[in-house]
C-alpha cells in the first residue's frame, strides 16, 4: 500500500484521440471552471474529451468514513459510466488515487474493474507522461508555490508531475514552502469530526504558504484548496490557491490576462 505511487513502473499509453474526464463532485458543484479549463487544455492538444453526464462522485467520502457498502454502490456506478477503452483523466489526485488503487479493494479484482483502474490517470500525470506536454509560457514573470494533496503525493506521485509542469514555465519561479509535504488538515469528515485538529493543521499550512510571499499557490486538488483558501479568506489574506489546470491554461494562452481567481 505504501508503494501505491507506481508512476515509475507504469506503462504509459501513446497519446490517445479521446479521453474521458472525471470531474469529481467538488469540481462539479463548487468549481466548474476547473473542469472547463481542463477540457480546454486537453482540446488544445487535439484530444476529444468525453464527459459522461452520469458520473457523480468517486465514493471516497463514504469509503473514508467506513461506509464500505455505500461507497461500493457509488463506485460501481462510476465504473459503468466509463466503458470505452480510453483513458479516464481525473482532475484530483485524491479521487484519482481512490479510483486507481482503492477500487480494486472495494470492488474486487475482476477484469472489468482492473481494466478501469488501469485507465485512470491523474490530470498532471496524464499531461506529463501521456501527452508529454511542454507548456509554452506566455504569462508575466511570477513566483508561485505548489501544494500537493497527500493522496496525490503518496498514491499518485503528483508532486513530481506537478513540479515538473510548473518548472517548465519559463517565467514562473516555483517557491517551496516549509513543511511542503505536510498535510493541510482537510481529510474529508476529519475536518468536521476533529475540527480543532484540522484547524491547527490548516493554520500552519496557511502560515507556511504565506511565508513564501507568493501571490498565489497552485494545487491539483480542490479538497485541500477548499480548506486552505477558506482559512486564508477567513484570515482576510489575499493569497489564494488555483487549480493547476486553470493555472496552466492561463499561462499558455497568449492573451492570458484573465486571472481566474
Amino acid at each position: 500500500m505504501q508503494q501505491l505511487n507506481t508512476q515509475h513502473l507504469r506503462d504509459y499509453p501513446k497519446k490517445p484521440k479521446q479521453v474521458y474526464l472525471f470531474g469529481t463532485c467538488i469540481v462539479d458543484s463548487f468549481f466548474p471552471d476547473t473542469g472547463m479549463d481542463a477540457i480546454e487544455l486537453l482540446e488544445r492538444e487535439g484530444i476529444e474529451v468525453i464527459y459522461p453526464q452520469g458520473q457523480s462522485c468517486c465514493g471516497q467520502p463514504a469509503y473514508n468514513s467506513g461506509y464500505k457498502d455505500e461507497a461500493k454502490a457509488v463506485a460501481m456506478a462510476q465504473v459503468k459510466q466509463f466503458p470505452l477503452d480510453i483513458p479516464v483523466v481525473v482532475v484530483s489526485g485524491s479521487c484519482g488515487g481512490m479510483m486507481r488503487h482503492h477500487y480494486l479493494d472495494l470492488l474486487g479484482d475482476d477484469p472489468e474493474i482492473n481494466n478501469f483502474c488501469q485507465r485512470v490517470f491523474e490530470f498532471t500525470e496524464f499531461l506529463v507522461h501521456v501527452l508529454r506536454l511542454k507548456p509554452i509560457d506566455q504569462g508575466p514573470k511570477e513566483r508561485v508555490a505548489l501544494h500537493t494533496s497527500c493522496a496525490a503525493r503518496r498514491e499518485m506521485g503528483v508532486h513530481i508531475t506537478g513540479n515538473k509542469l510548473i518548472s517548465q514555465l519559463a517565467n514562473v519561479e516555483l517557491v517551496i514552502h516549509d513543511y511542503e509535504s505536510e498535510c493541510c488538515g482537510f481529510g474529508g469528515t476529519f475536518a468536521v469530526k476533529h475540527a480543532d485538529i484540522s484547524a491547527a493543521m490548516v493554520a500552519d499550512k496557511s502560515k507556511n504558504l504565506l511565508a513564501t510571499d507568493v501571490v498565489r499557490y497552485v494545487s491539483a486538488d480542490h479538497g485541500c484548496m477548499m480548506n486552505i483558501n477558506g482559512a486564508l479568506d477567513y484570515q482576510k489574506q489575499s493569497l489564494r490557491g488555483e487549480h493547476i489546470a486553470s493555472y496552466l491554461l492561463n499561462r499558455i494562452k497568449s492573451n492570458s490576462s484573465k486571472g481566474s481567481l
Partner: protein
Amino acid sequence: MKHIIEEESKYVASAKAFRANVTRDLGNEELRSNFRGAMDYLMDKRKGAFSSEDELEVLREQCKLIKQRCLAKLPHLLEQLEGNLEKNGIKVHWAETITEANEIIAQLIAQKKGKSVVKGKSMVSEETALNDYLEERNVECLESDMGEYIVQLAKEHPSHIIMPAIHQNKKQVAKLFADNIDGFEYSTDVDTLIQQGREVLRNKFCQADVGISGVNFAVAETGTLCLVENEGNGRMCTTIPDLHIAITGIEKVIEHLADVPPLLSLLTRSATGQAISTYFNMISSPRKLGEKDGPEEVHLVLLDNGRSQAFADEELKQTLQCIRCGACMNHCPVYTRIGGHAYGTVYPGPIGKMISPHMLGLEATTNLPTASTLCGACGEVCPVKIPIPKILLRLRQESVKPKSQQPQVMKGQGAGRNNVEALIWKVWAQVHKSPTMYALSMWGLTRFRFLMPKKLGGWTSVRTAPKPAATTLHQRINAKQKKTQQSQQERG
C-alpha cells in the same frame, strides 16, 4: 484456587476522553512547541540515516517479510521460544490480560521477598500499568530510563514510545528535579541534569533486588531476549539485581538469530536515525555456575491483551508486524499537533490508533481511527510496511458496522455507529449511484445555493464556507454541447 479478578485498564477512561484531551492540549502553546521541535529533530535524524532510497526500500521489504514469516508461524515460534528459554534456565509465563501479567509479576517478586524494583523501559509494562499494581502491594518501582524517570516524577505516563518525556523541555525538567530530588543543584543545563539523575539512579541500581525490563526481540531459535538501548539502564536492570523479569507482547518473537541484524538496523535508524543503539544486549540465561554476576533468576512474561484478536484477521494482523520504532508518530501531523497524552492510550500516534482498539475495545477508542486525515505519512515511513492508513480505514468500518453484524472481528464492533449518520450515507449512496437523482440534487444545490448556511460547525470556526457554483460542471458541459450542436445544425 482463586481466579484473577480482572481490573479495567486505566486507559479506558482516558481514551474515552480523547476529544476533551485534544481540546486541552491543543491550547497549550508550550506543549505544542515542544512537540514540533522534537518531531522536526527526529524526522531529520531519520532522513540522514540511510545511504540510499534503494537500501531503505530493500530493507523495509526484507523486514516486512521477516515479520510476516514470524507471524505466519507465531504459535509454533512461541512454543519453540518457550522450549529454548526453559532449556536455558529462563522461566516463561503466559498472560491473557493485563491483570494476569501484573499478578504473575507481583507474585514472582513476593516469592523472592523483593521490596525494591528498578525498571528499564518497557511499554508493555505501561500497558499493564504495572507500577500502580506493584505500588499498591508495597513494592517500590523506580523507572530508570531518564525519560521514564522524568515522567514518573511528574506522575505522568510516556507521551512517546521511544522518548517518553518528549513533551517536557529542559526548564520543566529542571523544575521537576528541583521539586523532587534532595540536594538538587538547580540548573537547566542538560548535562548537569542528567548527571544528577544518574547519581540518584545509580544508588537505586545498587540496592534494588528486582529488575524489570521489556524485550525488543525474543529469538525462538536460541531462546534469547534482545534489548535495544542507549543509556545502560537496561543492562543495569538485567544484570545487577538478583531477579530479572522481562515482559513482552506475544508478537515480539522472531524465528532466527539471523533475523536480528536487519530488524535492529531498521529499528534504530527509523527511530532516532542511529546506525545502532549504544547497547544491544542479548540475554540467553540466568547466572551460570561460576559466573560472578547476573541475576540468579530470569523470567519472561508473554502478554496477549488483544493481540490474538488482531491476529485472527488477515488485514488487522499486519498491526502485529510493528517493531515499535515510533517513526509513524514522528511523521504524523496529528501527533505533532496534539502530542502523545491527548490520545489517552499507552501507545499514541498512528501505531496507537491501530493497536489500542484491540487492547481497550472499540467503545473506548472509537475516536482514534477517525482522528486522521489518512495523509499516509506514517505508512510511508513504517519500517515494516504496515499499511497504516488502510488499517485505520478498516477500523472505521468495524466501528460503524451494525453491532450485530457477523462475523464479529473486534471487541466493541459498531461502537461508533450513529443511526443518523448511517442514514445520511445511505441516502448519499442512493443519490450518487443514480445519475437522475444526482442531477436533481445538483439542480437543487445550485438553485438554492443562497440557502447554503454560512456557518458549518467546526469548519467555519477558522474558514469561510465554500459556496456552490451557480451552474455545475454537468450543466455547463451540457450547455456547451448544445451550443456546438446548434451551430453545427445552422451550418449544416
